[in-house]
């Protein structure tokens, strides 16, 4: 990561400074955490101040905000969605469920730790986290992008075998029609 940081050209530094002000978010809400998002978006906290707005499809989104637990079934959807997003892309795990399964830690149907399956950029701890926490995570992300440090997404390309193995362990083979290894070559990531 640091190696890549030093490789940033002057143009990239400027670009990062500017583009960090625009982050579009796709929020994946199966858990109870979604209730915290409306206040974050509306006049009380207004995340659009930071150039963050909610988007509808993975193609347009930069942030995949996963609120709450993921079951085996929904994880497949999340992975499909993640792979359809355009890099650079950032996964934010929201709430303790994504960190360690939270109150569902001993459920047979949920997955415990999201970072086994997707490269998570940031976790927001808490059950549930308040909008302030969400905003603070966003600002943290913005800062990291500005510094050129938010590169977790490259990990998915670099260590795809690891993620793939874990994914297959949970639900077997799925076909997302995305060839990550070939993408890595094609796009030179």
């Amino acid at each position, binding site marked *: 990561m640091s190696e890549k940081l030093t490789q940033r050209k002057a143009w990239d530094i400027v670009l990062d400074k500017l583009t960090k002000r625009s982050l579009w978010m796709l929020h994946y809400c199966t858990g109870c955490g979604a209730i915290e998002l409306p206040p974050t978006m509306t006049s009380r906290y207004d995340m659009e101040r930071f*150039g963050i707005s909610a988007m509808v499809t993975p193609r347009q989104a930069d942030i995949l905000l996963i609120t709450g637990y993921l079951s085996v079934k929904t994880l497949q959807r999340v992975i499909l969605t993640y792979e359809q997003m355009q890099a650079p892309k950032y996964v934010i795990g929201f709430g303790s469920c994504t960190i360690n399964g939270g109150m569902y830690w001993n459920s047979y149907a949920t997955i415990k730790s999201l970072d086994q399956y997707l490269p998570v950029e940031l976790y927001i701890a808490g059950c549930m986290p308040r909008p302030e926490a969400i905003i603070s995570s966003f600002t943290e992300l913005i800062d990291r992008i500005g510094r050129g440090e938010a590169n977790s997404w490259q990990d998915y390309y670099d260590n795809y075998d690891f993620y793939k193995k874990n994914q297959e362990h949970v639900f077997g083979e799925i076909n997302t029609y995305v060839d990550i290894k070939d993408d890595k070559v094609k796009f030179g990531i």
Partner: protein
Amino acid sequence: MSTVLWIIFYPIIAFAIGVILLGYGRKFNARVQRRYGPPIQQVFYDILKLMSKRTNISHGWMHDTALVMLLGGTLLTLYFIPVPGFDFFSGYGDFLVVMYILLIPSLGMALGVGETANPNGSIGISRALQMLAGYDIPFALTFIGMAILAGTTNFSEIIALQQAEGIFGWGLMTNPFLGVAALIALHGMMGEKPFEVMVAPHEIATGPMTEMGGKYLGMMMIQHALNVVIELTIYINLFLGGAANWASYLVKLFVLMTLILSVNALFGRFRVDDAVRFMWKVPLVLAVIGVLIIIL
């Protein structure tokens, strides 16, 4: 020489104005909703980010070509609409030409979205085209009415005629029916609420933009910024007496934009058939009255 400079720099200027107008729109909307809102240059950040995405996917060569056609067609339209100090091309194509080259971007986008093979996209295009038929009929009728009133279809001549008589020579003043009809149609043309059926993020996942990401979406946003300028300028040229200088041009742009944004901020969304019905009832009838006044 200055023409060459204009040809080179005009798209950039128009792009800047468009970005500011869109940013102004988002800010305006936020303030109506009692939010702080993004900075006024936010759209510029968005475009920059989208253009700098590392991975881009496309569903085929028409998908790629579509974006080129979209932006290329918009640039074409841009050149043919006179603005203060630059109406080099309006002598080669009148506003009948403009009306039809305005369709090139739509067609390009429609083809590209079609190739993405996403049903949401196709539904979006279906709605967009139905809306096109909705707003373009009254808009075209106001075009025709103004042309008959002015005795010409050439933009510069119409502007000159309006400016000759000061504010009372404006199209909006000489024939308020046409002016109002065109204003409502313009609202539909800009796709602002309540005529936002084509995008409708909550129903059809932003419709045409569903499969657009990265630089594809970026180019669409560039085109959108230019398009806002084009559409507002057409209205200004036809009904607000054009603009004698850049100051008045910008003032007119922002006033018109504010008007449209205020309506936008207040409404929800029509269903597509209701939107079209509205277009064929209110503005079309107004336009017919206006035209009848002119020819009788």
